[in-house]
């Protein structure tokens, strides 16, 4: 809400400043010259904030211009008919400028959004088509060179196809889950669950993926049963543990849970290379992948899916730098039904 009022308040401030300048220049410049100053502000408002605030600026400018700078001063009446034309002309020009400038602004913004969308589509295309290329390529090579290939070569082609297909399955599942979240079709059914059980089950499932990392849990005694969708919460931890294993070598993954007011607060931290401060919120964007790391496998949807699931529980999730040097993901879930 605050963000929305800002442009209007600033526009009014600019008009006020222009009026003061106008007052100061009253004797020196003709009113019509001062009006240029107001038009400048209208342009500024249109470029920065778009049509609605620019139009507000135009209207208030005309009123201030009339009241303060056109004789008789401090009234809305004018001493000469010509000023009526000035004011009308001013208003028309102001509005036309507002409309045209904001159209240009919108076009520029549109192009930026399209660029971003294209980048994302290119990323998905790559992620889907690459495994398919391996599968199609490997299997067709197998068919083509069937008599000439040695057994080991054939086995490698088949194994590669299988492993790429498994990776592709995960990508498809991620995309489906994200689709469900976006379309509001995600159905959470909460039942009282033991958080320790969820974490333990997830850790067991991800054990092969996490390999050389230990998961250390510190769960407060105050945490009893929490209304959760067990399967979906397990997915959240699966993603978090998977991320920690991808972006942090060695070390441990720490899971802390405690009570804060009416919520259970769960913190999952790793000792990896972490994420720069400015990206801490961006990592929850769809398809975000950290630019500096070697391109790890995965869609970049994990954290956005986590956010979708947590928010469906009525909770919140965000990230901070962890004390261990890596990333800390913090989840807050209401403990009452």
């Amino acid at each position, binding site marked *: 809400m605050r963000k929305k009022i800002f442009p209007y308040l600033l526009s009014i401030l600019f008009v006020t400043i222009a009026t003061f300048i106008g007052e100061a220049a009253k004797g020196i410049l003709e009113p019509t010259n001062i009006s240029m100053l107001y038009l400048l502000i209208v342009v500024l408002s249109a470029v920065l904030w778009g049509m609605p605030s620019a139009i507000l600026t135009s209207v208030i400018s005309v009123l201030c211009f009339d009241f303060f700078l056109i004789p008789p001063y401090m009234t809305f009446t004018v001493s000469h008919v010509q000023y009526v034309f000035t004011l009308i002309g001013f208003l028309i020009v102001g509005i036309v400028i507002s409309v045209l400038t904001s159209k240009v602004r919108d076009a520029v913004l549109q192009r930026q959004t399209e660029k971003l969308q294209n980048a994302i589509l290119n990323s998905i295309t790559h992620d889907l088509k690459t495994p398919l290329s391996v599968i199609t390529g490997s299997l067709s090579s197998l068919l083509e060179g069937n008599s000439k290939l040695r057994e080991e070569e054939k086995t490698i082609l088949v194994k590669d196809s*299988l492993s790429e*297909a498994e990776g592709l*399955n995960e990508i498809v599942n991620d995309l489906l889950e994200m689709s469900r979240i976006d379309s509001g079709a995600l159905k959470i059914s909460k*039942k009282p669950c*033991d958080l*320790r*059980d969820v974490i*333990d*089950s997830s850790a*067991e*499932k991800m*054990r*092969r993926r996490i*390999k050389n990392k230990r998961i250390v849990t510190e769960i407060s005694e105050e945490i009893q049963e929490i209304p959760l969708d*067990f*399967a979906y919460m*397990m997915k959240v931890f699966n993603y978090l543990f998977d991320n920690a294993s991808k972006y942090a070598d060695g070390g441990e993954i720490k899971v802390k849970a405690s009570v804060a007011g009416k919520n259970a607060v769960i913190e999952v931290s790793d000792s990896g290379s972490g994420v720069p401060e400015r990206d801490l919120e961006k990592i929850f964007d769809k398809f975000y992948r950290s630019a500096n790391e070697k391109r790890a496998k995965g869609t970049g949807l994990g954290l956005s899916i986590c956010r979708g699931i947590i928010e469906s529980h009525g909770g919140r999730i965000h990230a901070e730098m962890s004390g261990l040097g890596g990333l800390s993901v913090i989840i807050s879930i209401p403990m009452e039904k």
Partner: protein
Amino acid sequence: MSEGARILVIDDEQNIRKFLKSSLTSNGYFFMEADDGAGGISASLNLHPDVIILDLGLPDIDGFEVLRRIRKRSKTPVIILSVRDSVDDKVRALEEGADDYLSKPFDSKELTARVKAVLRRLLPVEQKEVLEAGKLYIDFTKRIISVNGKEIEITPTEYEVLKLLVVNLGNVVTRRQLLSQVWGKSEKTEGALHLLNVTVRNLRAKLSREGDESISIITEPCIGYRFTLK
């Protein structure tokens, strides 16, 4: 002996039936097929399969309905295949009488393991002396469990739970089965599920202490547990 067991596959996708035939026959099973619900139901009655593999996405009759009709007339174990993998679908399948649920796409080795597990259940309960599952070794007569040659200390309750899971290797054992066979309690009893969860958690901790990566007790959310080897 599971060799030569008769497996009926009910799936409308020809290519799926093709690779299942390839995989199952190479494991020594006798392969039979049906490509729709009506055909599947009649085959289940007339061809006397030992195991039925049923796809839920059939063109003529709803998969759950086919399952229900098969169950009305026979106790033949049924393994469900489906592209849908939500917890609700899995729970419903098991409640309607299926013995296991595998979501597509799946590794053919995984299906073979489930078929073997389900066939093992059919065998008369022999008084086995020992069972080896990967690095895990159970001596039933002495009630000793060892991993990697080292004996592990577990409580009698933990032993019973682990035994039930291992004997059903690869198959899901429902919470209801575990609670009733090990504790004689029902799921609805206050604190029963919690007791089960804690026991499994302790078991996992003890098994993983030996550092064996291959043994896992996987949680099937809202359904039960599955002991697997990888």
